[in-house]
C-alpha cells in the first residue's frame, strides 16, 4: 500500500547566537499509511511537537524530505503550501492558545472553509454540524476562547482540524492537558471518527501516555532526544522493550 505521509531523514536544528545548537529532531524517518494510526511517544522535550510542526510545514526542516500523498511538500511556498492544509491538519498541544482571542470559536472553526471559498452562511451551518459531531452545543460557535473550559476548547480544536475533511490528522497531545474522564471522552470521539472515516483518515497520534497509545494506535515510534529509539506494535513494545530508554519509559508509567 502506498503511504499517505512519508518523512525521510527529518532533521531540525535550533540554533541561536551565543547558544549551543540544539538538535530537536535528528534524522527521523517514518511512514503513515491510509487509515492507520501511528503513535509517537517520548518524554518531554524529545522533539514530538517539533515533528508535528515539521510534517505540517509550520517549522522548516533543516534537512530531510516530507512527502504527502506522493507529492514532495518540503519546499512548497505560498499558494501551493496553503493547499496542503486541505489534506493535513494539526490539533495543537495548547488548544486554548490556538484560538485567536479576538475571534469566536465558530469563526475559528469555519475559517478554513471560508478561505477555501465556501459562503459564510453555509460555513456557519457546517460549523454547527462539526460542533455537534465533536459533542458540543451549537451555542459554542458564538463563544470566545476564554469563555470555555479546557476540554470544550480541545473539542473545538478537533472540530476545527476536521472542518476541511483532511486525510491526515496530527494530534499533538490532544488529551494530555485534560483530566481522565474528559480524556476518555476525547479518545472515544477520536475512535468514533476513525471508525466512521475508515481509510479516509490517518492519524499521527502524539502522546506521552503509553497506555493510551496501546489502546489507540496500530504502530508506535518511541522518541528519545530527537531520535527514534524504537518502532513497532505497541503491545510488543510494552511486553518486551528492546531498548533501555523504552524500558524506563514503560516502567515509569506502569
Amino acid at each position, binding site marked *: 500500500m502506498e503511504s499517505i505521509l512519508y518523512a525521510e531523514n527529518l532533521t531540525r536544528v535550533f540554533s541561536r547566537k551565543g547558544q549551543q545548537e540544539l538538535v530537536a529532531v535528528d534524522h527521523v524517518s517514518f511512514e503513515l499509511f491510509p487509515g492507520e494510526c501511528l503513535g509517537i511517544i517520548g518524554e518531554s522535550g524529545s522533539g514530538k511537537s517539533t515533528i508535528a510542526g515539521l510534517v505540517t510545514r509550520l517549522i522548516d526542516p533543516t534537512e530531510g524530505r516530507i512527502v504527502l500523498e506522493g507529492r514532495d511538500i518540503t519546499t512548497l511556498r505560498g499558494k501551493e503550501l496553503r493547499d496542503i492544509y486541505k489534506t493535513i491538519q494539526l490539533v495543537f498541544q495548547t488548544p486554548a492558545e490556538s484560538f485567536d482571542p*479576538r475571534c469566536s470559536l465558530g469563526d475559528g472553526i469555519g475559517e478554513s472553509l471560508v*478561505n477555501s471559498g465556501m459562503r459564510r452562511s453555509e460555513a456557519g451551518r457546517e460549523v454547527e454540524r462539526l460542533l455537534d459531531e465533536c459533542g458540543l452545543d451549537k451555542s459554542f460557535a458564538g463563544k470566545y476562547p476564554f469563555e470555555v473550559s479546557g476540554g470544550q476548547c480541545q473539542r473545538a480544536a478537533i472540530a476545527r482540524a476536521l472542518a476541511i475533511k483532511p486525510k491526515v490528522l496530527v494530534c499533538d497531545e490532544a488529551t494530555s492537558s485534560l483530566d481522565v474522564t474528559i480524556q476518555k471522552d476525547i479518545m472515544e470521539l477520536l475512535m468514533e471518527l476513525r471508525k466512521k472515516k475508515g481509510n479516509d483518515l490517518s492519524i499521527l497520534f502524539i502522546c506521552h501516555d503509553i497506555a493510551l497509545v496501546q489502546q489507540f494506535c496500530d504502530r508506535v515510534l518511541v522518541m528519545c532526544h530527537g531520535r527514534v529509539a524504537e518502532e513497532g506494535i505497541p503491545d510488543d513494545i510494552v511486553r518486551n522493550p528492546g531498548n533501555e530508554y523504552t524500558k524506563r519509559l514503560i516502567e515509569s508509567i506502569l
Partner: protein
Amino acid sequence: MKTSGDVGKDKSLGTRTGSGDVGKDKNLGTQTGSGDVGKDKSQGTRTDSGDAKADNYGANVISDLREKGGSVHGAIHINNDNNSTPMVRVQRIKKSSVRTRLIIFGVLAVMLLLCSVFCEYLTPYDPYLQDLGNAKAAPSPEHLFGTDRYGRDMLSRVIVGSRTSIYSTLLLVAIITAFGTIIGVTCGFTGKKPDAVLMRISDIFLAFPGLVFALAVAGVLGGGLQNAIIALAAISWPKYARIARSQTLSQKEMPYIRAARLAGCSNLKIIFKHILPNIIGPILVTSMLDIGTMMMELAGLSFLGLGAKPPTAEWGSMMSDTRSLLSTTPWVTLSPGLAIFVSVMIFNLLGDTIRDYADPRSRGGRK
C-alpha cells in the same frame, strides 16, 4: 565583627520597615477603596433623596443613616476579611469609575472636535475683522476674552484656532500611528533583512533630539504648518514602529497564528485579520496619549515661528505673536494658552483613561 553585626541589624530593620510598609499600603489601599464605596453609595442616596425631600424628610434621614451604617459595616467587613472579596470589590469600583471617566472625557473630547468642525458657526464675531477703535479691550461681557491689538475678538479667534490646532494635531497623530504601525508590523512579521534595515533607520531618527530635529527639518523645508507636521511626523513615527514590532514579534509565534496558517490564510490575511486586531490596543492607547503631546509640540513650533503663519489663527502662533503684550494686555496671550492647556489636558486624560480601560485586568470579558 561589629560591622557585620551592624549590617545584620540594618538588614532586619530594613526588612521590618519594608514589610510594615507593605502591610500598611495594602490596608490603606483597601480602606480607600471601601471608603469610596461608602461615599459613592451615600452620595447616590443623597442625590436620589434630594428629589423627594419635600415628601418625607424624616424617612430620608433614616435611610441616609442606614445607608451610612451599612457602608461602615461594609468597610469593617472588608478590613477583617482577607479573602478575595475586597479585591473583587475594589476591582469593580475601579472598572465602573474607569467607565465613567471614559464617558466624561470622551464626551469632552468629542465636544472639542465638534467645536473645531463647526468653528465658523460658533464664533460670536468675525475672528479676522479688525476694529481698531476697540483694540486691546479687557475681557468684558461683549468680548469674554477681550480683544487683541487690532481689535479682533479673542474668543472668536481662539474658537477658530481650534480648527488648525486640533485638526492638524489629529492629522499628525493619524499619520504617525498608521505609518509607524505599518513599518513595525512589516519588520516584526518578515524579520531578517527588511527588519534590520528599517529598524536601523528608525534608530537614526530616534538618535536626534526630538524638537531640535523638528526645528532643523522645518528650517530646511521652510516654515508653515504643513512642514511643521512633516517635521514632527519624521521624529515621532519610530516610537510606533517599535511598539508595533515588539507586539508583532510576541504574537507571531503564538499557536493561533500557526492555526491561521493551517486554515489556509495568506500572510496578508494573517496580518490584517489576526495580528493587527491583537496588537492595535496598546498602539491606540499610545496615540491617544500622544495627541496632547503633539498639540503642545505643534503649538511650540508655531510659537517659534515655524508652524502656522499669521493671520491664520493657531494657538501656538497666536501666543507667539502677542508675547510682547503679556505684561500690558495678558488676556491676548493667555487665552490661546488656556485653550492649549484645556485641550491638551482633555486628550491626555482621555488617553490615560483609555489605557486603564484597555488594561485587561480592569476589563472582564470582551463581547
